[in-house]
């Protein structure tokens, strides 16, 4: 599976004239707040600094960067699909890992994406942070279309959206100590100017993820437990003050008793830095725990969204048959409850081969309620109450 990372045809970036260099570091001459410059832009408020935005359009003679979505939509995907060429040299087939998806993530919201392996949830996450190039559709960061951003804007978008990997054993460089793992990105992005400041930032970040800096900075990854590694990789993602983070099943590989601690850490960090988080999981229970009372969740199957709406309603009254099957399949620790759940008798045991997905509704070959319409036509997402669902039953 080739990995077409994002390339963008853009010109050189204009300079923000309001950055002033003072002995203590850079200060924004308008707001007089000390800022951390990222090359020619201040890292924090670039996207929301009204003065700068207005100035950019006038100076660069570019029609002002029109903003598509509202102020609080941090990232949005419109008709997004990612297609991988699969198969041997001559019999190339298209694998729709992500199939025409529309999704939005608001400021300081946790949107849970639930799906089994092969549902395309990881590909969606990696495309939103710019690791994969979308085959169709566009991604909007702060309402700005990523493919038409200037080089500097694009660099800030990539830096402000981070990704936490699932496997703690391959997300940290085994040859570097924890200190180096955190120091290298800081230095590369010129976010610190002296060794002292570098150490201060690293110590603060480690403390914010519940690791005592003195004990951990000289350790190699092989000396850390699974839980500690996940904390270091979360710390690394927070170093660059991101605005949008994709957490791809961060606790699946950890022991049960450690999971809650890491999930709570993610929730507290999200509140503290009002991050928007895309939480990927295969467990609806965990999705609800992270999305919270008002949070939203989306159920994905073979690259498409089957149901998308408030997590609480989705758990109590699931609309789509696949969500119902998922709910009944999730084992409950309480023996009484788990044995009382009625089990959905699916028509076939095994998920279809993604390369030969059924023509109509993708779940049609396993869905016990499948009508002949389901086999022919693919159901669009329809709003039922305040949940969107793609099923001909509604």
């Amino acid at each position, binding site marked *: 599976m080739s990995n077409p990372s994002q390339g963008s045809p853009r010109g050189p970036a204009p300079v923000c004239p309001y950055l002033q260099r003072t002995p203590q570091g850079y200060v924004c001459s308008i707001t007089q707040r000390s800022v951390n410059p990222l090359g020619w832009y201040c890292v924090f408020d670039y996207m929301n600094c009204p003065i700068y935005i207005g100035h950019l359009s006038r100076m660069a003679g570019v029609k002002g960067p029109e903003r598509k979505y509202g102020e609080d939509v941090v990232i949005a995907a419109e008709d997004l699909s990612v297609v991988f060429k699969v198969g*041997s*040299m*001559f*019999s190339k087939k298209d694998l729709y890992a992500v199939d025409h998806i529309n999704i939005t993530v608001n400021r300081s919201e946790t949107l849970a994406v639930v799906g089994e392996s092969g549902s395309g949830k990881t590909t969606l996450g990696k495309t939103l942070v710019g690791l994969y190039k979308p085959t169709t559709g566009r991604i909007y960061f702060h309402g700005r279309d990523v493919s038409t951003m200037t080089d500097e804007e694009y660099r800030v978008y990539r830096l402000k959206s981070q990704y936490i990997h699932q496997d703690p054993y391959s997300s940290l460089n085994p040859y570097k100590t924890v200190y180096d793992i955190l120091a290298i990105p800081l230095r590369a992005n010129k976010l610190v100017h002296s060794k002292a400041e570098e150490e201060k930032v690293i110590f603060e970040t480690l403390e914010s993820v519940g690791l005592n800096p003195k004990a951990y900075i000289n350790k190699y990854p092989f000396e850390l437990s699974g839980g500690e590694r996940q904390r270091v990789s979360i710390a690394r993602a927070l170093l660059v003050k991101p605005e949008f983070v994709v957490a791809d099943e961060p606790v699946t590989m950890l022991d049960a008793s450690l999971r809650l601690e890491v999930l709570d850490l993610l929730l507290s960090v999200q509140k503290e830095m009002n991050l928007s988080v895309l939480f990927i999981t295969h467990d609806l229970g965990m999705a609800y725990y992270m999305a919270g009372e008002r949070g939203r969740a989306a159920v994905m199957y073979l690259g498409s969204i089957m149901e998308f709406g408030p997590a609480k309603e989705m758990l109590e009254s699931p609309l789509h048959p696949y969500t119902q099957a998922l709910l009944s399949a999730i084992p409950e620790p309480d023996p009484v409850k788990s044995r009382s759940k009625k089990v959905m008798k699916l028509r076939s045991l095994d998920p279809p081969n993604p390369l030969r997905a059924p023509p109509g509704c993708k779940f049609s070959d396993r869905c016990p309620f499948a009508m002949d319409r389901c086999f022919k036509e693919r159901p669009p997402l329809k709003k039922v109450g305040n949940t969107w669902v793609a099923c001909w039953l509604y």
Partner: protein
Amino acid sequence: MARRDIINTSIWAVKSVAVVIAELIFAISISFFLIHAMPGNPYQIILVGLLQRGIPYEQAKIMAAALAGYNPNVNPIVSWAGYMWNVFHGNLGYSLIYRAPVIKIIATAAPWTILLVAVSLTLAFATGYILGLYAASKTGIVDALINGSLSFFQSIPSYVLALILIIIFGVLLKIAPIAGAYSSNVTPGFTAKFILDVMRHLALPLLTYYLVIFPGWVFGTRSLAISITHEDFVLVAKARSLPEKRITFTYIGKNALLPQLTALLYSYGLMFGSSIFIESTFAIPGLGYVLAIGSGSRDYLLTIGSFLIIIIAVILGNFIADVTYGLIDPRVRGV
């Protein structure tokens, strides 16, 4: 097999043949380039030789081109194509020291090398594979023994090993002839006496070849077998109380055989490399010997001709190993 499997397998077969053809063309181009890089221009020497014999210039030019196998006085592309054509038709030029077409000399020399390489390689591969599998289940002294012997043989060049064997068996014990492919008083022919004599003469060279590569095979198979023993399906095989022999050969052995076949791919090059030394030391008139003599006496066409044949043998060897690999591992065939 399902229709799809047949298609995939044939695609895989076509791909393998294409690779071989590309490699052949590459090898022939290298030798074409080498001929031109040679200081003394072989074509010139043959031309002068013919002129001295009184053959008119025009005719001599054509004859020289035919004899040398390439024609330098046309533009390079045509000359290259001409050379390619000649090679495919077996005309590798003319050897000055043997006064015969290179292909004939090689035809007489090749069997010796192929005999030596084939026999010693199969012996070393088989014994190394069996001993490696056996050693995988043993630890302690066997480890030290194998590691020690491997680094010992790895650090000895083949000609030094040949010298040692000559000193021990030839000079001190005097039980094996130390030079020549067969003694002079025996008439070559398909007689038992001749064959016996040849085998006596080839004993030491074969032993040298064998000792150069044998430890490598034992060590390779052993470390592979140990890593496979830790796989789940071996534990499950034990759990199903399958007989020990079945587990060692069909479960561990078969999976170890595959990577060893790829290792076979690259050991051909090594084998032909050391043939130059072993055949020269033991005066066995094989390809290596011809190459050494040829380059020693500046007979470039003979040198490059034998060099080309060696590469072609290596390429064919690779192809055979590649095909057997595909036959054994269904995934490679794209099933």
